[in-house]
């Protein structure tokens, strides 16, 4: 099993907290009161400028518990992970011709996936 990808961008977490707060129709004042922190601190946290204790961090997560899955997925989608970065670097390190071959192969795999989705029976055995 591959290890879960790490997400490093604090700004994204702050932005996500802001989005979740708005989805839950909470003002900064309301949410900060629930969390037991100052509104100005929550504001700084949403801007990625404020670090909190583990207790406060987990209180925030608990506040949005129903959205944890979504919190997770979107962060993973929006974030360039170390693996993504490594892949880009690896591709860039190849000669131009080889880079084109990789691009062609990606295009081929994408087309294959699209066909598989449209006609699940057509490509049976392709991967064998």
């Amino acid at each position: 099993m591959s290890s879960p990808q790490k997400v490093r961008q604090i700004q994204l977490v702050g932005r996500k907290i802001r989005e979740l707060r708005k989805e839950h129709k909470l003002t900064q004042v309301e949410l900060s009161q629930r969390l037991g922190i100052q509104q100005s601190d929550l504001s700084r946290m949403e801007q990625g400028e404020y670090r909190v204790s583990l207790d406060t961090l987990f209180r925030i997560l608990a506040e949005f518990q129903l959205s944890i899955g979504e919190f997770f997925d979107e962060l993973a989608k929006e974030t360039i992970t170390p693996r993504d970065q490594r892949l880009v670097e690896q591709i860039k390190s190849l000669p131009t011709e080889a880079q084109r071959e990789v691009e062609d192969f990606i295009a081929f795999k994408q087309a294959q996936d699209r066909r598989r989705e449209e006609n699940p029976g057509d490509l049976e055995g392709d991967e064998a």
Partner: protein
Amino acid sequence: MSSETGHIPLEDLMSRAHRAVIAGQLSEAEEVLEAALQTARETGDRREIDRAFCSRASLAIELGRGDGYIKELREILLRNVDHESCFLAAYGIARAYDFNKSYKKGLFYARIARDRAEVLGRREWLASAYNQIGNLLVVESFFEDACQEYEQALALVPPDPGSAFRRALYQDNLGYCHVVQGRLVEGFRILFESYRTLRRLGANRYAIGPRVSLCFAYLEAGRPRRALLCGGPALNAAEADGQAESVKNLLYLLGEAANLAGDIGLARSYFGRLQREFYPEAGYLPDFLLAIDVRKLVNLKA
């Protein structure tokens, strides 16, 4: 001074209490300070009573039982023109607010304490006030400002062996700030100095602080295996000493270190313990922490 005023026993008691605090014998220190307060009351000297009360309150605050003392400390601050009593009261209130997480109020009183210490010209007290202001800025994530306060505090501590304990505590605080701000070389240097000094002084319970900071520093330096080696014994020491906050931070740091080192099983075990022991309602935590690196969100001193 003491022999002339007949206050030798009180001063002796205060010194004994101070030594007991450094040695981590806090129950003994409490008893001695209680006796000091009694002695002061017997003298009937209001100033001595206030000073002894402030010292007694200080220790109670450090032990997390300080809320009940704030009102009387504030009265001492308001009724006194004596800068010494005012410093002690204001400093005690700042610490109490720090403990109950009213940081902005704490900052207000810490600055009063600093001003009184400046008037008195007491370098040691001024250093304590700067350090306290730094602590209250750190929890509010004003790391650069906090660094300046800690540096001022350290500049005021004399380089003699008697001040080594105090210097080591300030160094831990400053070292953590350097690490948070990415100044790793400086952070490591100061944290190691702090740790070694505290170990040499036998102040083992206080040495847990720099060990937590060092564990974090290794993580930030991209050396998770060193973080595991540093944090593991620190966790054992923190557990043995009943330092719940350090245990919590170390379980998190060790989980993060194991995860970064690629040992997912070990990471899950640390995060699992963190969840079971501190956040039993949050079953999602281990998975969350395995997937999301929250190092840049977390303030270990908050």
